[in-house]
């Protein structure tokens, strides 16, 4: 807890001025003698979706956990809000890759929201304003019809949206997402990305997304970061996907181009 407060202390940040932005500077994480992250520098702008891609074990999830302050790290996090003030304490929302829980548990979607948002014990009936607030939160992720559903009865995609809604209340300045590797079908994933697009436009929020689906990244991300223990390359999706190092790492065919990635799976999954 203490560490989290310490590393969010803001210092001056010149090129972030006048724009709401988060700067990750010289982030390094060592576990034992292993260097997981080495000198990572990133600028994340509000209203943008920044996708982090990279091979397995590249330190993508570690980066998110370091930003959250959950694991010890070196380096600093600067946050500057839209008025050019560096508040130093961005509200961070986090959507985990997967929530492992007992699917037989008698817990509804409303229950988990009430437990997170209210001090009133969940076994007492909720106040009307609270239920309205939860409905609003759920509507943001197109899931208000799920409010009384049991958690264990949700599909992978529905659960992902519920977790997103939880991360959005209270509304964060910086949203961290760890995309699930499995358990969410293609339609669910598509809806998830659409919601993210709505959010970044409406709420002017900075979003960092760890993704394993290069198609989706090519279509939806504003900025792509190729990570492998350090930042290999970053830029627009076009720049990163046409880079030789990206092709090498993901074993793309040499003849392919960015357009091929962007187009794939379009039109209801018919390959082009």
């Amino acid at each position, binding site marked *: *807890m203490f560490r989290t407060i310490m590393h969010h202390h803001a210092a001056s940040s010149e090129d972030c001025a006048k724009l709401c932005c988060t700067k990750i500077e010289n982030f390094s994480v060592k576990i034992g003698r292993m260097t997981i992250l080495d000198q990572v520098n990133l600028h994340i702008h509000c209203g943008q979706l920044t996708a982090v891609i990279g091979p397995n074990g590249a330190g993508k999830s570690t980066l998110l956990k370091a930003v959250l302050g959950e694991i010890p790290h070196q380096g600093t996090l600067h946050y500057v809000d839209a008025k050019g003030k560096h508040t130093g304490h961005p509200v961070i929302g986090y959507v985990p890759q997967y929530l492992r829980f007992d699917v037989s*548990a*008698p817990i*509804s979607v409303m229950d988990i929201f009430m437990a997170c948002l209210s001090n009133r014990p*969940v*076994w007492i*009936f909720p106040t009307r304003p609270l239920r309205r607030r939860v409905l609003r939160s759920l509507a943001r992720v197109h899931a208000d019809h799920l409010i009384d*559903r*049991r958690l264990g009865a949700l599909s992978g995609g529905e659960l992902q949206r519920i977790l997103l809604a939880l991360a959005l209340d209270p509304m964060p300045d910086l949203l961290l997402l760890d995309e699930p590797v499995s358990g969410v079908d293609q339609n669910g994933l598509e809806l998830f990305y659409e919601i993210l697009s709505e959010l970044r436009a409406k709420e002017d929020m900075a979003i960092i997304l760890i993704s394993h689906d290069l198609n989706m990244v090519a279509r939806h991300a504003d900025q792509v970061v190729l990570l492998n223990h350090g930042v290999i390359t970053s830029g627009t999706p076009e720049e990163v996907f046409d880079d030789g190092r990206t092709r090498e790492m993901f074993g793309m065919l040499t003849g392919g181009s960015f357009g091929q990635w962007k187009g794939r799976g379009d039109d209801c999954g018919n390959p082009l």
Partner: protein
Amino acid sequence: MTVEILYDIMNMLLPFEWAEHTFMKNAFLAILLVTPLFGLLSTMVVSNRMAFFSDSLGHGAFTGIAIGVLLGFASPLTSLMVFSVGFALFITYIKTKSTASTDTIIGVFSSTAIALGLMLMSRGGGFNKFSTYLIGDVLSITPEDLQTLLLVALFVLVGWGALFNRLLILSINPSFARSRGIPALWVDGIFASLLALLVSISIQWVGILIINALLVLPAAAARNVTNNVKQYHAVSVLVAMLSGVSGLIVAYYFNMAAGATIVAIAAAIFFVTMLLKPRFIR
């Protein structure tokens, strides 16, 4: 005397043969006070998979009684409470710090506690006077015991209200709870203390051998037929109270141990809910 007023009310409301005796009235009031607490706390014992842990609390209580008698207390309740809470906090702390698996750690401390208790109690060959703690005697409850029960019941209820939401998030997923800033060790520790308190106050009339059943069966039954936290709590409390009251009455007419009868009825309810499960779970 407030107790006298309660007795009069019961005479009006319960014109049955079993309710004529004062010891039955006391037992009835005690059951109305304590079974709802078992119903409440058992929800999280089951959700957090703590059945083995709550079992060990009974064993820890055994040592607490022995130490109390050794130190010369007339009623070993104080030493029992202090020792049980200390024992519960100690296990909670060790299991978060140690790399050994939770059930191994609980197994080690649970058997150590019962061995220690047996050693102390059997010293000088006087074990028989402790045998009531094994089976329990609900008919021995006095009006003074009822007062203590009422205090503990209020304390546990307030603690439960303050703790519950955090405990619920922790029961869903510990790392999700951490990302929400919930101090797991504190929440676990307070829950363990409440459990220890409930166990130590009720052990003299339920008995060490079966007390754990009351911390598992109500919620286990409720889980089979409920879909959200409110239903889960309501049904669990209902099962605990229903089996408590009916167990006491049945035990009176058949002249059996009340604690055991209560548990047997709760078990019967559990099996019924198991059969009903497909009709209720959405």
